[in-house]
Each structure stands twice: as C-alpha cells, then as structure tokens.
C-alpha cells in the first residue's frame, strides 16, 4: 500500500504539466457547479423566508369563485346554490392535526350605538365592509381574538378576554384607542351596542349616532363593559372593530350556537413548512365542494416566481456542467491512463495487483481534486456573490410585480348573514429582507454538499476509464 501513495505523490509532482492540466479542468468545472449550488441555496433560503413571512395560517373558507361560477353557469335554473356554512365539528377534526397549534373561529356582527361614535378612518372600504354600520364586532372561540394572535393589533390597556368571560357569555368588549379617544372612554366604562340593520346606513365616521337620524337600530341596546383598549399595528386595520366573544355575538344577533358558522375559521400551524401537508391531510374532511383550505399560495407563488426562474436556470447550468465536466474528466483520464500503459504493464509484470494500480491513479486524481475543490470553494464564493448581486439588483428589488405584500383580507360570508369581519391573515414581505436572505454564506452544510457533488463527479469521471482500461 505504501508504494501506491509514494509513487502517486511522486507522479503528481514530477509530471507537473499533466497535474496542472487536470487541476485546471477540475477547477473550472467545480467553480461553475459550486456557483450554481450556492445560488440554488440562496434561492431556497429566500423562499423559506418568504414562506415564513407570509405565515403559517390556513383558512377554512367558502370558495366564492367556484360558487359564483356555478350560479352563473348558462342554462342554470333560477334556483341558485346557497353558500354552505362552515362546520365547527369539521374544524375540530382538522384542528386535531399535529401541525395545528391553535385554531380560531371568528364570528362577526355589525353594530350601532347610541352612546359611542365611530372613530374617523382614512379608508372608505372599512365603512362599506361594515355595511354602513358604525362598528364591527369580531368574536373568538377562545380567550384570544385572532387579530391579537396575528399581531394585527396589540393590547394597550386593560386585559383581553378570560376563560370565564368566554364561558359565561360576559358582556365585555375590547375597543380601539381611536374609539376610546373619540368618546373619552376608559377601561371599565360601559357602552351600549345594538345589532345594526343591514339595509340601513349607520352613523358615518365622525358623525354621532344622534345626528344620523336615518340610523335604524331596530334592536334593543345592550350594555357592554370595556375591559381592554387596543392599538392597531397594521395601518390598514379598521379601528372601529370591537373584540368580544362568539357567544356575545350570538346573543347580540339573537341566535343560538349550532355546528354551522358564517364566521371565519383559521388554523395556525407550527411551521410554514407544514402548510401543504396539513392541507393534504385535512381536505378530505371538507363537506362541500365549495369549501376550501386557503393558505394564500397565490401570494407565495407571485413572490417566488423570479426565484423559481433563477432556480430553474441554475439547475440546468448545474446539470449541463456536471455532465460535461464528467465527460471531460473521463476523456482526460482515459488519455492519461493510456499514456501510462507501459508503467501499468511494468507494474503488472512485477506482480502488482490491478486494484492497487487503480487505487494509485485514483489517489493521484483525488489529490488534485481536493486542491481544486478547496480553491473552488473560495473562488465560487466570490463569483456567486457577483451573480447574486446582479440577481438582487435586476430581478428581486427592481421587479414592480414584487411589491411588499400587505397580506390578503378575508371576509366572512358575503351573502346575507350576520355580518362581516375582515382579518388580515398573512404577513408583510419586505423584499429588501428577501434580497438580504439571498446572500448565502458558504457554511459547513453548503461545503459538505459541494464536497459530495465533487466526489461523485470525480469518481464517475475517473473510475470508468480506469476500470475499462485495467479490466
């Protein structure tokens, strides 16, 4: 065995032209492959970041598109398909998934008040979404309202719902700082709310209820105690939203709790990576063809489109260079081995085993490959950095289609029902952060993957001619 390494080493250093030639070939091939790998890793990291920013919420909801398409089918009878309500028992089955950390059923209602005026908002869509009522009540099936959990709002004073509040249908509410300021309200104060009639415009923003003579609050008002005051984190959040429990909303609407709900049902998963698995496992529980599990894939797909293109191109590059590189190495090794046929013959005639001769040649090639690998890791870091910067400047940050997402709003049943709530489920994606994630450092895991690719390439390229010739 000692002879193999002694002669292998001497062969390398005393035949520098061949050694350098093989080194150059391996260096170029490795550089191209490594640069492609590093860019692939960058793409993967960026996509993971986008996914994590978009979030791990999955909504069990009505597929309005399919429903409207079904109702507008030419030749369809006058009888339109009623939107099937979501099922709480189905939601409970889905929530049993190991991926689900919590789930939220959010009932909603529109309400008006004789004693409280809505805060002024910049968005006219908020008023429209409240069906021209003064306030939107947003419920919860647990002690946390979903908007608090998602970080759309944050508690400023007081407290959120307690388990007792939820279980005992306590008439307690959490109002916004804006509403509190507009009405000089504090924690502990009482406000009156009544179910709004949907066909009647309620008080407009800035207008007191008393001034809006046409306001028709046909239901009787109920007293609610303010237990907390929140501030909106998202600038688009409707500050005339009042948080309470689902049971309070049922009471306001004069309904009793059933298995069906017109509210929203949202599952929060332990990881954005489990979204697809959860959807696959839970889709069989859906009881209507017009129900879906939505995770805002369209946002994700839109944001990752340029990254996928880059990934596709680099995959082709890696594939082509790998195959071409293996063929070049194969040809070069074939020439080098044929060139040493007399040496091989001499060793065989001296009684050296074929396997040992192959081992010597493989040793020589691997030594060169290790040196080429080490240098390539360093230089590919530089070349991939140049390419990455170009991609960031010209693809990620400049693309007008990739504006920062403010998430999608979900609405409850748009058909006549108890009311609507809008909850911003998905996170904002700052493309500068995506660009930052795109610059991947060459760490131990990347190096180990590059090493594996290099070994496979060298083994394929060198062992085939050796075995064929020596065989």
């Amino acid at each position: 065995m000692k002879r193999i390494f002694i002669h292998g080493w001497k062969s390398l250093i005393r035949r520098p032209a061949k050694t350098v030639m093989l080194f150059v070939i391996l260096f170029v091939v490795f550089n191209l492959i490594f640069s492609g790998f590093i860019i692939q890793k960058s793409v993967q990291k960026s996509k993971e970041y986008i996914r994590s920013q978009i979030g791990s919420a999955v909504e069990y909801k009505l597929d309005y598109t399919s429903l409207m398409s079904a109702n507008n089918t030419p030749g369809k009878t006058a009888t339109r398909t009623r939107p099937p309500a979501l099922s709480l028992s189905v939601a409970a089955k889905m929530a049993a998934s190991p991926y689900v950390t919590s789930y939220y059923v959010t009932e909603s209602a529109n309400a008006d008040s004789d004693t409280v005026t809505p805060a002024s908002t910049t968005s006219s869509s908020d008023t429209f979404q409240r069906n021209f009522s003064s306030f939107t009540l947003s419920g919860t099936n647990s002690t946390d309202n979903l908007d608090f959990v998602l970080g759309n709002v944050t508690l400023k004073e007081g407290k959120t719902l307690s388990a007792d509040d939820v279980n005992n249908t306590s008439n307690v509410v959490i109002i916004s700082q804006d509403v509190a300021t507009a009405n000089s309200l504090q924690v502990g104060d009482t406000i009156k709310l009544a179910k709004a009639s949907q066909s009647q415009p309620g008080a407009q923003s800035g207008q007191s209820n008393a001034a809006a003579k046409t306001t028709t609050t046909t239901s009787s008002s109920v007293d609610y105690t303010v237990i907390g005051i929140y501030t909106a984190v998202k600038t688009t959040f409707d500050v005339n939203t009042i948080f309470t429990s689902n049971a309070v909303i049922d009471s306001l609407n004069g309904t009793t709790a059933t298995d069906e709900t017109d509210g929203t049902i949202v599952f929060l998963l332990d990881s954005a990576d489990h979204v697809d698995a959860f959807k696959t496992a839970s889709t069989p529980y859906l009881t209507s063809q017009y129900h879906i599990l939505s995770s805002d894939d369209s946002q994700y797909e839109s944001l990752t489109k340029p990254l996928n293109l880059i990934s596709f191109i680099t995959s082709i590059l890696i594939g082509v260079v790998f195959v071409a590189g293996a063929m070049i190495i194969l040809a070069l090794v074939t020439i080098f081995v044929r060139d040493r046929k007399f040496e091989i013959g001499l060793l065989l005639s001296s009684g050296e085993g074929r396997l040992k001769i192959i081992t010597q040649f493989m040793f020589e090639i691997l030594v060169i490959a290790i040196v080429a690998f080490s240098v390539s890791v360093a230089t590919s870091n530089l070349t991939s950095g140049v390419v990455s910067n170009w991609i960031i400047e010209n693809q990620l940050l400049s693309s007008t289609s990739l504006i920062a997402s403010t998430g999608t709003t979900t609405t409850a049943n748009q058909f006549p029902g108890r009311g609507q709530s809008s909850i911003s489920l998905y996170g904002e994606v700052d493309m500068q952060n995506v660009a930052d994630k795109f610059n991947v450092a060459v760490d131990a895991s990347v190096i180990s993957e590059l090493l594996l690719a290099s070994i496979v390439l060298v083994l394929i390229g060198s062992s085939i001619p050796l075995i064929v010739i020596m065989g």
Partner: protein
Amino acid sequence: MSENFFELQNIEYGYLDGGMKRTILDGLTYSFDKGKFYTILGPSGSGKSTLLAIAAALDQPEKGMVKFQGKDIKAMGYTLFRRNNIAIIFQKYNLMNYLTAVENVEADMLIIDHKVPGNKKDLAYKILDTVGIVKTKADRIVTTLSGGEQQRVAISRAIAKDVDLILGDEPTGALDTATQKEIIKLFQTLAHEYQKTIIIVTHSDEVASQSDIILHLRDGKLTL
C-alpha cells in the same frame, strides 16, 4: 543437477489468422535447471515472445501447464507468481520514467510480499553499485541515463527482488555491442555466482553463444 525447477509441459498456443488457425506453440515441453543461463533462439515471428509471456504468466496457454518448483503456476495465482518468484526484463520500457534509478529498484521491493531486511534505499544503492551505477547516477531520473545504464537499472530491479528465475525478452536488443557484452556478463554472474536461472529470448546468435544452453524454437517446439 536440480530437477523440476521450472517446467513447461505440453504447451499449446495458437491464434486465428484470416480465418485459419495458426499454431505457434505445439505441445512444447522443456525443463529448466537452476543456476543456468539459457537463451532461446528463433526467427522473427516464431513465437519467442509468446513463449516468454506464457512462462512469465502474462498470458495463458490453450493447453498445457507451467510449473515452478513442482507447482502449477495457475493454481499458485499468476499475480502472486509474478510478484514473488520471477523478474522480467524487457527490451524497452523497463522502468518508471518519473522515478530515479534507486527509486525504480526500490519499487519492486515495495511490491513483493516478503519483507526485505534492512533499509531498502541503502540496499538499492548497493545493488546499483554492483552493476556499475554509482550513487550520483542512481539519484537521477532514469530517462537521463543511457540505454545501457537503464538496462543495468532494470537488472538491478530483478536482483533486488531476490528471485531465482529471471526472464528477459530481447534485453540487449536496443543496446550497442559493447554494452551488450557487459549486460551478458551480468547475466552470467547472476547464473553462476548467484545460482539464478536466466532465460532470455533473442534473435542474436552472438548473444546466444555466450549462454550456457542454447534452445531453438522451431515448429512450435524447443530443441537443443
């Protein structure tokens, strides 16, 4: 006289030549003794190199057996037989061209199975010195040596292996007359003083005349 040192028994070998079977070795049988210098003479194309290849276990006969010290070399294993029992000297390309003379001599000592006592490099220098290659030349890459010096290095390799059978295929073919004579003298010394069995194939009558036994390869058989 030592018997059954190296035997060729009923060796047959042929090949197809334009659809016709051409027999090169036809039931060739001969026994070689220890400590003798043999030459095998024959015209070009008579099968001398083929015979040597079979004797050196570089090729296999179609029929027949090669025995070394009474053992069939096929049963022994051809690679093992070559590694531990014989040394081969060719007309050219006897040496690894990227190694020095002393490194070439050391190479075979690294290949053989039995341990070489003492320092291999020192022993290699000693052997080279006995064949007329001084240390300064021994440390040079072999391609910088003359043809005769290279053949001496090749013979040194064979000596370093410390085997009893040395086979040569026209080992003096590429050398001038004076160098030829020096090499032949080395072979004689190895046979008579060191009791090695030397078998070389040649087409040179002059070389053959200096051996102990001249064999003729005729019609696929060896004759005296």
